[in-house]
């Protein structure tokens, strides 16, 4: 499943996800990529192991009196049924973490137009980041939505190219605000991406500019 993936998560993102310190929207993109990429899954396990050793070195805090007994009482009050492993994906293009946010696969997405034939669905998260699905018709450019900070873009269907490289299914582009790029969906198949930014999006105010941009396409 993962042999085609050429663009992976950075160490900083994997470490942040392992530590649990990323904004929720970034965590969703990381979890979705890891679902598709055995290589990043293995690297994530490394950073979780490092987290375990950091915890082991964190010192020992004094527990309250009766802490063990209170925990045993908590256990006694829990349902007996053992937790079941979640079943792996059987069909569709969205890995489980993304399906949980959308409420289903591609068919369940409630798209809204943002101009130039591009559609999006913003997914509900904590607000420290914005994460959305983008549907870009084959051959069309992704609107420049004026993000600042870091933007993660994960391809789920089709492919796009920009000045730096080609990104196919499972590939992730990690773009900082210093990267000026114009991603264009490859001809042949519409491109669906999951994109997260750590700053609010400004699609609406840019609509005229976006429309203008598409005139030449």
């Amino acid at each position, binding site marked *: 499943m993962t042999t085609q993936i050429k663009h992976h998560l950075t160490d900083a993102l994997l470490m942040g996800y392992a530590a*649990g310190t990323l904004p929720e929207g970034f965590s969703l993109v990381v979890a979705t990529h890891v679902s598709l990429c055995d290589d990043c899954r293995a690297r994530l396990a490394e950073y979780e192991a490092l987290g375990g050793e950091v915890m082991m070195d964190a010192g020992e805090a004094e527990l309250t009196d009766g802490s063990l007994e209170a925990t*045993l009482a908590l256990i006694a009050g829990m349902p007996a049924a053992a937790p079941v492993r979640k079943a792996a994906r059987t069909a569709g293009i969205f890995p489980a973490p993304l399906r949980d946010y959308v409420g289903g696969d591609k068919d369940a997405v409630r798209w809204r137009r943002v101009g130039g034939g591009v559609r999006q669905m913003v997914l509900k998260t904590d607000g420290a980041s914005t994460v959305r699905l983008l549907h870009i018709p084959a051959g069309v450019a992704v609107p420049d939505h004026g993000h600042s900070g870091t933007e993660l873009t994960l391809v789920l269907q089709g492919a796009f190219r920009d000045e730096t490289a080609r990104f196919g299914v499972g590939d992730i582009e990690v773009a900082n605000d210093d990267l000026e790029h114009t991603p264009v969906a490859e001809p042949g198949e519409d491109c669906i991406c999951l994109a997260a930014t750590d700053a609010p999006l400004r699609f609406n105010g840019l609509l005229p500019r976006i429309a203008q941009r598409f005139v030449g396409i």
Partner: protein
Amino acid sequence: MNGTRIGAGMNEEAVSKRAEWVAEIAAIRDHADQAAFAAVFRHFAPRVKAFLMKSGASPDMAEECTQDVMATLWRKAGLFDPAKASVSTWIFTIARNRQIDMIRKQRRPEPEELDWGPEPEPDQDDAIALQQETEQLGAALQALPEKQRILIERAYFGDLSHSEIAEETGLPLGTIKSRIRLALERLRHQMR
């Protein structure tokens, strides 16, 4: 890689301690063994609580969350696979997830489970080797110069400012490229 090789400078006592924890989790899973649970609790609960407090939780909140983490450990003992994670790694991931849920009140998107098929009994040699490699990783962390080690710890405590993280995609990662990197790579070979 020979699964049972003892690496240079390996602390055999620490490795056998780790094997003991694996056996205790199995006793919790198979026999609902309260004595085994008490032993795991005594070792890990104070460390989980310290980790949560260093990550910004109040003592009360950290205590409540720690009890929840240890109860979760009991409930999920059947899902622990010593060939894929050491006990310290596993408890860390539980603590992290309960912290995000109970303290930060956020959702934690988790990767899809791999389709492992019916779970075979974990391979003993693999499990022992993984515990050894994790012990090596812990030793490599402790052997770092203090400044570097503290930076890595702060990254896991969520204690690096935005600019610190931005500046150094980052110093903590720079330090990881040394001995930690080597230990991580060995660990990865073992986990594959």
